[in-house]
C-alpha cells in the first residue's frame, strides 16, 4: 500500500472550517490514480497532506507505510525529498536555473535520489538528459536556453523530468495539464505513464477535467469520499 488514509480530518487553521474529512482511502503501488473534484473541494489540500507539507489534525496519513503525522517537519521535508516527485499546474521551473539544472534540483536536497540517479546514469547530468530525451525534450538547443522562454508544454515536460529524477516512489501531479490543449494533454499523460511504468512509480493525478478520467486505472471523486465537502454542499 503506497497510501493509506484513516479517519482524516483537516482544517487549515484553528477555528477554520474543516476542509477534508476522509474515513478511508487507499492507493496500491504502481497504480495510476485520478482524483477529481470541483475547484475549492480540497484537492490541493489533500496533496499537501500526502507530500507532508501539512499534517492531519486527527487521523492518519500513511505514505509507504510511514505515518507522516508522526514525523517532525524536518523529517517530513526529507521524506518528501526522498520519495515524492511533484508537478504543479504551471510555472514549475526555477527561472534562474538552466533546463538541466532544474531537472537535477531534487538531487540537491536528497542523497537518496542522487544515488538512484547516479545508479542509472554515469553522472547526474547524463541522467537528466536521458529523462529529457524520453520526454521528447532533448534538442541540444533547448538545454542552454533560459527556462522562461520555453513554451508551457515544454515547461511541463521539464517539470515531469524533474519529478522523475532519482526515481521517487510516488509521483504527485496537481492539474499539470490544465494549461495544455486537448491533444497535448493526452500525450503528456501517456508520457507520464510510460515513465512511471519504467521506474515502477505510483501516480496520483489531480484534475477537475473529467475527460481525462478514462486514461487512468482508477478514479476517486473527492466529493464522494470527503464528508467535509458533502457537509458544505448540504449547506
Amino acid at each position, binding site marked *: 500500500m503506497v497510501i493509506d488514509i484513516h479517519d482524516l480530518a483537516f482544517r487549515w487553521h484553528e477555528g477554520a472550517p474543516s476542509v477534508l474529512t476522509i474515513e478511508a482511502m487507499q492507493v496500491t503501488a504502481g497504480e495510476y490514480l485520478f482524483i477529481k473534484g470541483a475547484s475549492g473541494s480540497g484537492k*490541493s489540500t489533500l*496533496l*499537501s497532506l500526502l*507530500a507532508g*507539507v*501539512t499534517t492531519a489534525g486527527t487521523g492518519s496519513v500513511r505514505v509507504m507505510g510511514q505515518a507522516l503525522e508522526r514525523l517532525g*517537519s*524536518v523529517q517530513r*521535508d*526529507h521524506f*518528501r*525529498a*526522498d520519495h515524492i516527485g*511533484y508537478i*504543479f499546474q504551471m*510555472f*514549475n*521551473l*526555477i*527561472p*534562474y*536555473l538552466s533546463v538541466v*539544472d532544474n531537472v537535477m*534540483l*531534487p538531487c*540537491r*536536497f*536528497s542523497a537518496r535520489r542522487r544515488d538512484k540517479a547516479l545508479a542509472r546514469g554515469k553522472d547526474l547530468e547524463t541522467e537528466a538528459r536521458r529523462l529529457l530525451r524520453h520526454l521528447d525534450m532533448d534538442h541540444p538547443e533547448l538545454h542552454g536556453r533560459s527556462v522562461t522562454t520555453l513554451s508551457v508544454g515544454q515547461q511541463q515536460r521539464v517539470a515531469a523530468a*524533474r519529478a522523475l529524477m532519482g526515481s521517487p516512489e510516488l509521483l504527485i501531479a*496537481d492539474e499539470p495539464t490544465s494549461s495544455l490543449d486537448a491533444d497535448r494533454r493526452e500525450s503528456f499523460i501517456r508520457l507520464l505513464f510510460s515513465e512511471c511504468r519504467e521506474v515502477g512509480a505510483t501516480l496520483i493525478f489531480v484534475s477537475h477535467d473529467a475527460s481525462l478520467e478514462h486514461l487512468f486505472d482508477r478514479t476517486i471523486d473527492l466529493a464522494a469520499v470527503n464528508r467535509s465537502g458533502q457537509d458544505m454542499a448540504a449547506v
Partner: protein
Amino acid sequence: MATFSLAWKSLLNRRFTAMLTVVSIALSVTLLVGVERLRTEARTSFANTLSGTDLIVGARSGPVQLLLYTVFRIGDATNNISWKSYQEIAAHPKVAWSVPISLGDSHRGFRVLGTTTAYFDRYRYARDRQLVIAQGQRFADLYDAVIGAEVAEKLGYKIGDPIVVAHGASDVSFARHDDKPFRVVGILTRTGTPVDRTVHVSLEAIEAIHVDWQSGAPIPGVSISAEQTRAMDLTPKVITAALFGLKSKVATFQVQRFINEYPQEALSAILPGVALSQLWDLIGIAENALLIVSAFVVVVGLFGMLTTLLTSLNERRREMAILRSVGARPGHVFALIMGEAGFLTLFGVLLGLALLYLLLLAGQPIIESRFGIFITIDGLSPYEWILLVAVVGAGFLVGGIPSYRAYKLSLADGLSVRV
C-alpha cells in the same frame, strides 16, 4: 552548500539590480575605510609636523601656545628668551644640537623666521623627512631669504626676486623694513607643514633690519643703511624660541626639568609629540564626526540591499514553493536569502576595498604634493579589519530580515502559490 550555489545563480539572474546593490555597498565601504585611513594618516602626519626635535623651549607659557607660535606660526610669543640663556642651555652636556628661532616679522601675510642654517639640517617632519631645497640654495648672504613652497606659489616668486619684510604680523606700509630688502635664494619643496608658509632668513638678518628700530617703530632721525649694518656686530640679544635635540631620549625629562627650573629666566620646555597630540585632541573632534557620518552611509547602503531583497520576495513566492516541493526545508529558503545577502555584502566589501586601494594608488602622489600627507599604502590595520567585520556582520543582520520573512512565507504557503 547546495543553497549557496542556488543563491549565487539567483543573483546572477538578477545581476543588474545585484550589481547596483553591490556598488552602493562598495561605495559606502570605500568611504568608511577611506575616511578611517585619511583620519589616521592625518593624525600621524600632524603628530609628525615636527619630528626629530626632543624639546621646544620658549618663554614660560602653556605647551599648546608655545607649540602654536613656534611650529604653526599662529599667535605671538608673550616674551623672548635671552641669547645668553639660549647659549647656556645649548651648552648643557645632554644637548646634542640646537636651533634658535626668531619670529615677529612677516611678508605679505607669511611669517618670517630668523634662524641658522642648522634649521635645514635639523628640521624633520612626517616620520623623519628632511627639508629639501627645490631650487637655489640656503641663505648665505645677510639679506638672503629661503621661502616655503606655498609662499613661492601664492606670490609667484622665483630665485632672485626681492622681498620686503614688514614689522609685525600685519603688513602695513609704514612699518616696512623697505630700506633693507631681501633676495630669494632658495625655494623649499612642499612639506604639508607650516614651513611651506614661512620665509626663512638668518638670525643676523633679523638683527640687522631692527638695528635702527626700537619698541616696534623706527628710531626717529636714525637711519642705518643695509650696507652699513654689514660692518656691525649682529649677534642677537634675544630670540623667540629654540629647538633642541638631545644626545639620548632618556635624558628628555631631566633636561626639561632643568629648563623649566632655569633660575635666570622663566622658560618652558615642551615635548613636541605630546603637545601635538594634545592639540590634535582639541581640533580632532571633526574626524570622529566624519567617521560616524560614513558609518551611517554604510547603513544606508545596507538598507538599499534590504529594500531590494524584501521587494523581490513577493515575486519569488512561487520559487519558494517549487523549492519546497523538491524537498527544501523552510530553513533552506532562509539560507537562500541569507546567502544572497551574504554574497551582496561580501562582494560590496571586496569591491569597496579594491576601489579604495585604486583611489589610494592614484591619489597618493596628488595628496602628497598638495597636502604633504604621505599616505602609506599597506594592508588593513586591525581597526579597519574591525570596521569591515562590522560591515559584514551588519550585512548579515540586515539580511536576516528578508530571510526570516521568506522563511515565514514558505512555512505558511507550503506548496500552494499565491502570486
